[in-house]
């Protein structure tokens, strides 16, 4: 173990932390806390990026670290908090699948993800080979979270944590994407959140609630055939 340098240990630690955080989100039912957790996740991501930058000395990593700080640690949580306050949605209703069950499925997903990441890790020359597995796990867990939640807001949080997972995957596997792409992605995420904001207000003024069961009208109901 001593062979492993400190930064690397720290990186692995961050990875583990990310996984923990996504489980925490999965179990969390208060929307405010969800957002906070998201912010923390961003923070860990930032930390990981900095560590990686320090270790490899690739400068564009600093840039993406800055992006992360600005976007994922400060801007998005702030926006979401404002939305929550303006719309007054603090609690998510009872999730579709109860927490413990969700946890169980989550564990299975983690196993699956690690198994999946095995072949990749074999040939990863980068420092944080085994981090990819975790990235996949985070992505899938956020997916699970989106499936199980009822409030639009928590789905959005899930969506963003999925983005975080992706980001972590990109970094750990390849020291981040080329800058063009990084910016593009960041821009998209930003716009996405803005659009979301507009959405929320529209939905709100339409249904005066963000509960998703309002959004289940468009379905395939029985249609009697005309002449044919």
């Amino acid at each position, binding site marked *: 173990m001593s062979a492993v340098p400190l930064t690397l240990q720290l990186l692995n630690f961050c990875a583990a932390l990310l996984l923990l955080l996504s489980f925490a989100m999965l179990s969390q039912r208060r929307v405010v806390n969800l957002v906070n957790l998201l912010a923390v996740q961003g923070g860990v991501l930032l930390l990981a990026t900095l560590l990686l930058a320090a270790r490899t000395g690739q400068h*564009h990593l600093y840039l993406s670290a800055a992006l992360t700080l600005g976007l994922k640690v400060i801007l998005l949580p702030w926006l979401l908090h404002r939305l929550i306050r303006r719309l007054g949605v603090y609690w998510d209703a009872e999730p579709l699948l109860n927490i413990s069950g969700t946890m169980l499925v989550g564990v299975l997903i983690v196993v699956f993800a690690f198994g*999946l990441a095995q*072949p*990749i890790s074999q*040939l*990863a*020359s980068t420092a944080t080979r085994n981090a990819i597995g975790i990235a*996949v796990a985070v*992505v899938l867990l956020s*997916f699970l979270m*989106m499936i199980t939640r009822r409030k*639009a807001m928590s*789905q959005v949080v899930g*969506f963003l944590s*999925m*983005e975080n997972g*992706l980001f972590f*995957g*990109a970094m750990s*596997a*390849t*020291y981040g*994407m*080329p*800058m*063009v*792409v990084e910016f*593009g*992605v960041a*821009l*998209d995420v930003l*716009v*996405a959140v803005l*659009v*979301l904001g*507009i*959405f929320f207000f*529209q*939905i709100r003024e*339409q*249904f005066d609630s963000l509960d998703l069961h*309002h*959004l*289940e*009208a*468009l379905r*395939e109901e*029985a*249609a009697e*055939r*005309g*002449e*044919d």
Partner: protein
Amino acid sequence: MSLELLILLATPLTGALTLGVLGARRFAPELNVGFSLLTFLAAGALAVRVVAAGQLLVAHEQFFIDAFNVFLVTLTALVGLTTAIFSRPYMRVELEHGRVRPLQLRLYHSMYQLFMTTMLVALTTNNMGLLWVAMEAATLSTVLLVTLYRTAASLEAGWKYFILCGVGIAQALFGTILLYFAAEHAIGGEGVSALLWTHLNGVKGQLEPAVLSLAFVFLLVGYGTKAGLAPLHNWLPDAHAEGPTPISAVLSGLLLNVAIYAVVRCKILVEGSLHSALPSQMLMGFGLLSVVVAVFLLWRQRDIKRLFAYSSIEHMGIITFAFGMGGAVANFAALLHMTVHSLTKSAIFFAAGHAAQKAGTQLMDQIRGLITLSPTIGWGLMMGSLAILGMPPFGVFASEFLILTTAMREQPWATPILLAALAVAFAAIFGRVQPMVFGETTAKRLPHPPALLPVFVHLGLVLGLGLYIPPYLADWYRAAARLIGGG
């Protein structure tokens, strides 16, 4: 950076900005048409140049035009133009009905141009990452258009569109990352170039199969969601039905094509590295599943735009199946089918949109006797439906002819399914369209004459493609088919 390309990409972008300011003025629709026209001209020039000078690699290799995407670019620009022409009177009527307010009209026009930009970027870029960015941007630019009417249904549709496509596209991003990862491995990590399709294509032989198969799954699920392949299609009918008709037309006619385009680009790489039939089988599976699911859901539609949305899913399925079969003929047929489908389907949406406006409803049971109400709309809808159902001498038949005959030889097991599916589709769609076109009418006339020029231009083109494919076009298709491989 070639001039044509510059104009091609810059025009809609400036259009988006300009209309973002002036979009609410009376002349905004004309402006919209103008920008689209300019784009189309640029696309034409580009096509001519590429046909003359072969493929084109510009802007530090960031942009890349070859036979495969150049005809899609032209097609996109053309449909963009005709849709703009169509939306002029259409949105006017909507305005008078008070379904939209001037400010929303501004949003509409600006987003329309932005959407065109993203489409064109996605088609012309050489950078898989940029492709992803453009696809995501396409979603974002259309999602607000879907909710333009602010009705409950449109909001729901928009929300589903946003979430499902967002999540889907996120998978695509992960796939792209894995691709990058593998590429870095093969090429050695000089950052940017490892995402350039041309480079990847060059070294696809050495890409790590294990990674690429994973990457392909993520990419397929991601872009497949946008292409509306079952079971990832659920956003599509809602978004098509609830948005304004011009948007339904471009979503169906362009976005789906571009998504398929992305999938095929990825397939080329993955197949090159895997040397296994896995990707083809996945495509064929998705294709058949989409066709079957779509035709059976067609059977029970009541909303005219939903109906044709499902028919779009069906045709995407057919195209995917054809690409999955591979081989010169099948690829050729698939490309042809992409062309004729987007032309026909947008034409149908134009006609259907006018029909719905005239009848004041989208429910097919309440639309009757169009042929007496307005012969042009009636015949447009009738001919369009017959064309999309693969009735010769329309071009859709030409491609289906090739696809079916190929399937009969290559994948005979699939033909009974296709036969049954096409039969059900015919019964479903024609059984609905016939009473709408024929019979006794109820609705009243409207002040604005319908802009049916686009409808008949499109149908004319499709008809022409059915009877005679000009040599240079055929060469395009052949070259593209060769590019995609198998040929």
